[in-house]
């Protein structure tokens, strides 16, 4: 039996520590991990809990991230509750195995501390790794601060292990800005957390010797399509379960989560759509712009997959101009996030103007002033009735002005 870990009602935790405490409280059966900056402390903290007797489960140190996720798959198929953490190149090395986990419908929880992808090598936060996972068949939730990293990690087990979901879940947080920034965090007691998450009830577990099963079957053109679409439907159908788990969590803690978060959107004319810590920066900017008469709002995507197409549309249907901020190099396209938000808005009657900023690559700072500038620029588009700049621009980039594509509307 694990030792009792003393917690205060209010702790000062960074995102990594918060996530590692959530893993401890979730009573995970197996953590198989290979640490990488900036997610290292999640695994490191967890290792110290193991060493000090606070963990009943197994902690397996492996030789790569590929092996980490492979170990997680084995343990999850065996019927255990399983989690790990990674970032950037480690996430990229996991990529093959991520698809295996989701295809086998194994509810593994992965804490992804977002970091840029090399080359050039960079340890700081952007969303390149997060975007890399977007077609991998995992549920992807995004925490904007340490408290949310803790809360969403607890929710992740409950969502993924739900028998009508049975999917792996990633909980993202921004490298360093969240993962290494200590903030006030209000944890649940161990008892309350354990009660909320509940015990895992295995499905098709390989340790059930009365019902032997084969995992990882081969399916060719006559079967593969059906299996992939069944999986796609499961991700789509996870939406109400995610809402239920968020609602239950709110009842317990008073902290409310939605798949799409809206701030100052009630009467907004212009909006920023963003992920991660940028959301909090933009919220301050929007507040400050009130005095200048600009009605600015923020729509933040809490649940990146399943993509909340309907809720994004609902949140933005009354604004005049939207800027979607992509923190990942689009490498020859519009930002992927811009494309997804634009696709949702295209199916509305109002079809607000949509622009795209690429920003914050490799941890480049995104300031409140810059958020205000972007809001003001959207106001100018709204006043003109069309996009007056290039559709894709770059925020915080040194060098001569760069932009791509002009509007054909207006």
């Amino acid at each position, binding site marked *: 039996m694990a030792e009792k870990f003393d917690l205060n009602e209010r702790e000062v935790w960074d995102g990594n520590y918060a996530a590692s405490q959530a893993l401890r409280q979730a009573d995970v059966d197996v953590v198989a991990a290979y640490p990488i900056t900036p997610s290292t402390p999640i695994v490191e903290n967890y290792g110290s809990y193991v060493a000090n007797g606070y963990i009943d489960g197994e902690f397996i140190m492996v030789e790569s991230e590929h092996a980490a996720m492979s170990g997680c798959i084995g343990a999850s198929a065996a019927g255990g509750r399983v989690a790990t953490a990674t970032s950037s190149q480690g996430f990229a090395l996991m990529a093959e195995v991520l698809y295996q986990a989701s*295809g*086998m*419908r*194994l509810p593994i929880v992965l804490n992804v501390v977002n970091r840029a992808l090399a080359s050039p090598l960079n340890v700081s936060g952007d969303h390149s790794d997060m975007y890399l996972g977007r077609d991998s068949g995992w549920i992807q939730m995004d925490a904007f601060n340490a408290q949310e990293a803790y809360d969403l990690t607890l929710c992740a087990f409950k969502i993924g292990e739900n028998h009508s979901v*049975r999917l792996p879940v990633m909980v993202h947080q921004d490298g360093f800005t969240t993962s290494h920034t200590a903030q006030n965090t209000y944890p649940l007691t161990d008892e309350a957390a354990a009660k909320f998450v509940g015990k895992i009830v295995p*499905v*098709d577990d390989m340790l059930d*010797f*009365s*019902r*032997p*099963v*084969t*995992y*990882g*079957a081969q*399916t*060719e053109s*006559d*079967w593969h*399509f*059906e*299996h992939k*679409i*069944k*999986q796609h*439907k*499961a991700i789509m159908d996870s939406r109400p379960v995610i809402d239920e788990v968020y609602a239950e969590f709110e009842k317990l803690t008073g902290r409310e989560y939605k798949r799409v978060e809206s701030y100052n959107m009630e009467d907004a004319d212009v909006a920023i759509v963003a992920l991660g810590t940028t959301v909090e920066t933009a919220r301050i900017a929007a507040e400050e712009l009130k005095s200048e008469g600009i009605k600015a709002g923020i729509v933040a995507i809490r649940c990146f997959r399943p993509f909340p197409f309907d809720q994004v549309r609902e949140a933005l249907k009354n604004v005049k101009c939207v800027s979607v901020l992509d923190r990942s190099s689009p490498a020859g396209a519009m930002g992927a996030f811009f494309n997804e938000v634009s696709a949702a808005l295209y199916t509305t009657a109002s079809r607000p103007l949509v622009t795209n900023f690429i920003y914050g690559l490799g941890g480049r700072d995104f300031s409140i002033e810059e958020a205000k500038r972007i809001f003001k620029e959207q106001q100018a588009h709204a006043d003109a009735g069309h996009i007056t700049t290039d559709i894709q621009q770059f925020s915080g980039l040194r060098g001569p002005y760069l932009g791509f594509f002009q509007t054909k509307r207006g």
Partner: protein
Amino acid sequence: MQDLKLRANDNRGLSQLEAGFDLLGWHEITQGSILHSFDGDATNIVNLKAEERTYSGYNSYTATVASWRVDKPVFNIDVCIDCQNCWVWCPDSSIISRDKQMLGIDYDHCKGCGVCVEVCPTNPKSLLMFAEQRELGEALSQWPEKKKKEEKN
């Protein structure tokens, strides 16, 4: 005389694994492409002989996976000494042996690799490779004589 049609179970080899069953829709297939090996409770199934087990339609035991064999081993019961060498070495569990009596080849799973022939210690060999389409009776009628010691060199 050996049973040339011997199979461990009458239900075997009914179908090709890759196109075996009614092609189900996305709403009917198993979650995570999980395949169950047996029908019903399999708690003590390890104690049963293969032909007594309730293998499911998803198990390769009930399907033939040998369609691409070019040469097949033919077994001659009159020469065999039941040493079980072939049973030990066969990589596809395709040597059928019961109570240490070699009974024949499972042609639904044998890939024709020839390992059984290589490891057969008798003179002449009790297993020899023949072209897939060759009749078993014809193959047995052409079995070589025992090699004399002086013929070796």
